[in-house]
C-alpha cells in the first residue's frame, strides 16, 4: 500500500452537553493515536443541551474516515461532519497577543496591528494586548510579525468553523 497523503481536516461534532463528554472525545483521539491540532468546545443551543466541538485533525483519507466512524459511535454524539470534505466553509480563530515595548517598536506594533485589523483591547504605556481574528494563517502571520516588535505572550482559541450557505450541519 502506498502511504496516502496526510492533510488537515476540520471536523464539527455535535454532542450532548453532559459531564464527561469532552473526555470521551479527547480520550478517543488519545487512545487510538489520532492527532488533535486544535480543539474548541462550547454550548451552542438555547436549551443548553447541545455542545459543538470543532476539531482540526490530520491524516490520510482512510484515517479521517475511521476517526469519523469512531466518533459517530459514541453514544452522546449527535452528528459528525467533515467540513473540509463537505466543501466551502468558513474557519476562524481569535488570538489575544501581548506585546511590550517603547518608542519605535511600539509605534510599529500599532501600525502592523492596524494592517491586520487587530484591535487593542488593553493598553499601558509600555504594552498592548491586541485582539486579532481570521484564518489560522492570518493569525500565524500576525504573531510572527509581533515577535519582532516585542511579543510577550499569546492566547489562541483554536479554530471554529461553519459551512457556507443556508443549511445547518
Amino acid at each position: 500500500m502506498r502511504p496516502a497523503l496526510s492533510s488537515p481536516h476540520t471536523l464539527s461534532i455535535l454532542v450532548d452537553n453532559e459531564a464527561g463528554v469532552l473526555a470521551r472525545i479527547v480520550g478517543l483521539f488519545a487512545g487510538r493515536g489520532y492527532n488533535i491540532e486544535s480543539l474548541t468546545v462550547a454550548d451552542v443551543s438555547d436549551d443548553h443541551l447541545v455542545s459543538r466541538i470543532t476539531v482540526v485533525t490530520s491524516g490520510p483519507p482512510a484515517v479521517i474516515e475511521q476517526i469519523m466512524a469512531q466518533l459517530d459511535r459514541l453514544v452522546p454524539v449527535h452528528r459528525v461532519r467533515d467540513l473540509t470534505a463537505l466543501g466551502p466553509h468558513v474557519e476562524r480563530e481569535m488570538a489575544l497577543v501581548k506585546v511590550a515595548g517603547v518608542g519605535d517598536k511600539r509605534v510599529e506594533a500599532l501600525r502592523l496591528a492596524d494592517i491586520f485589523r487587530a484591535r487593542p483591547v488593553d493598553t499601558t504605556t509600555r504594552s498592548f494586548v491586541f485582539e486579532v481574528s481570521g484564518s489560522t494563517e492570518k493569525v500565524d502571520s500576525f504573531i510572527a510579525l509581533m515577535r519582532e516588535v516585542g511579543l510577550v505572550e499569546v492566547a489562541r482559541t483554536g479554530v471554529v468553523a461553519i459551512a457556507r450557505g443556508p443549511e445547518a450541519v
Partner: protein
Amino acid sequence: MTTQELNGAGVIVRALTDLGVEIVFGYPGGAVLPLYDALFAQSKIKHILVRHEQAAVHAAEGYARSTGKPGVVLVTSGPGATNAVTGITDAMMDSIPLVVLTGQVPTHLIGTDAFQECDTVGITRHCSKHNYLVKDIAKLGDTIHEAFYVATSGRPGPVVVDLPKDIQVAKARYVRPGAPSHKTYKPQVKGDLAAIEAAVEMLAAAERPILYTGGGIINSGPGASVLLRELQRLTGAPVTSTLMGLGCFPATSPAFLGMLGMHGTYEANMAMHGADLMLCLGARFDDRVTGRLDAFSPGSRKIHVDIDRSSINKTVRVDLGIVGDVGHVLEDMIKVWKARGHRAGNLRPWWAKIDHWRQRDSLGFAQTGSEILPQYAIRRLWEATHARNPIITTEVGQHQMWAAQHFGFEDPNKWLTSGGLGTMGYGLPAAIGAQLGNPGALVIDIAGEASIQMNIQELGTASQYRLPVKVFILNNEYMGMVRQWQELNHGGRYSESYSEALPDFVKLAEAYGWTGLRIETADQLDDGIAAMLAADGPVMVDCRVAKLANCFPMIPSGAAHTDMVLHGDETVGEKDEDAAALV
C-alpha cells in the same frame, strides 16, 4: 404504568425486575449496601455471590453468551469497580452485552479521595460501550433502562452505571418507561438495499467465493445462524469462521473449512488467500485473522457486513461495506438471491482446489504411546460429549486454540472464549455463568494449568450454588503458548513460563467440595472422561498431557496466510525486528 415511592435502591431493583433480569453476579461492599438490602427483600432476582469481582463480570459474560440475554453485575466502589475492569474490557472487545452496576461514594464526597473512592466513570470510559454516573435521583430509573438498551442494541457491549450511595437511599418514584429509544444513539439495523443487491450480484458472479463469518452472527441471535446455513446452501460457497464465530455454522458440514487465522486450518487460510470474492459477515479483520495485511487475500473483492460502521475499512479496505445487523442483511440477501433467480455457480474447480488443500490434513496428529497429546484429549472429550451438545468455555492459550481446532461446534452460543482481550482466568467463571443460564446443560471449561489458577477461587462459587460444571485441565506444566513462542522466537529460553509449584489439583478440588480426578496416560483417558461425566456435581480433571507439544498450524505473527507453518520441523529462519515486535 405504575408509580410508587421507593428509595433509589428499590428503584434499581424494580427496574431490573421490569427488564426481566433473573440473575445478578456480584460482591457486596460498603457503597452498595442499600442495594443489597433491596435485593434481600425480594425473590425475583437471584444474586450469585462470586469470590472476586473480575469473576462476576466473566460469569455475566458466560451467562450472556450462552443465553443471548444481557449479563448483570453488581459490585461496590473502589476496588470492587477496579477489579471488574478486566472483565468489562473483555466484554468490550468481544461485544458482549452487560450492565455493570458499581457503587460509588456519596455525591458530596466524590473527588475528595474518600474511602474506597475511585473515578469509576473515568476509568471505564474507554473500556465500556457507555457509562453513567447517576447524580440525579429523578433520572435513576430511566438510566437503568437506557443502560440495558445501549448494552443490548447495535453492537452489544458493557455499560457501566455508577451509583453513589446517597442516590441509593434517596426517596424516589419509579415510572416504568415506554419503548426504549435514545435521542442520539440509533443503531442502524437494516442494511442498505441497493448495497445488498450489489452484494448478491457480486456473490452470484464469483468463481471462488468464501464466507468469512464471525461473532456478529452469534450476537445477532440464533436466526442469523439459520440464515447463514441457507445462504451457504443457495450459493454453495465454503464457510470459514473466526474464533468468535465458531458454532454459527456446523463444524460437521462438508462446506465448513474450520477456523481461519493464526491457528486456523490450511484449507481455510489458503481459501481466504485464493478467493475472488470474500463475504465477511460479522467479523472484523482482526490481526490474528489477517496476518500480514499487504498479503491478505490479494485477489479478492471484499464485502463487509457489520453493525459497527467503524469496523468497515478499519484495517482492510473493502469494495463494498454494508452497515446493518448481519441477521437482517442475510435475510435480505437471501430474498434478493431468490427473487433474481440466481443459482449456485459452477464452483467445482474451486472446491477441487479446496479439497486438495484439505488433503494436507493440517490438524492431523498421531497419538502413539502412553503420553497424551492434548489434541487427542480434546478429540476424545468431543467424542464422549458431543451428543449432549455441551457448552464449552476456555481459558487462554494453547488449550484454547486446540479446543477451537479439535472440538467441533454445531450450534451458536455453545462456545464461550475470550477472543479479543485474551483473558486468562475467563473460563471457570464463564462456565459458572453459563451453567446458571442453562441449568440442564453440560458445561465444560477446557483449561490450562496456568490459566485456571487466575480465577481458581471460583471453585467456591460453583460449590455454593451446586453447579455441576466440569473443568478439564490440559496440564503440560507450562504456560504453553508463552513457551511455544519462546521456543519459536526466543531460542528456546523459557523465561518464567514453567508452572512451578503447582497445587495438587485433585486435593484442591476436594478441598472445595468438588470431585477431583487425574488422568496420566492415554489408556486412562476415556475412563477418566466417563468418570467426569458420571459425577453429579462439579468435577475438576487434571489431565497430564505432553509437556512440549506445540499448537500447529500456525501463521507466525506478521506473516502471510501462505507462510503457514504446519509442523514444528518447518520453523526455520530468524525474524526481523518488525516481526519480533508483533504479538
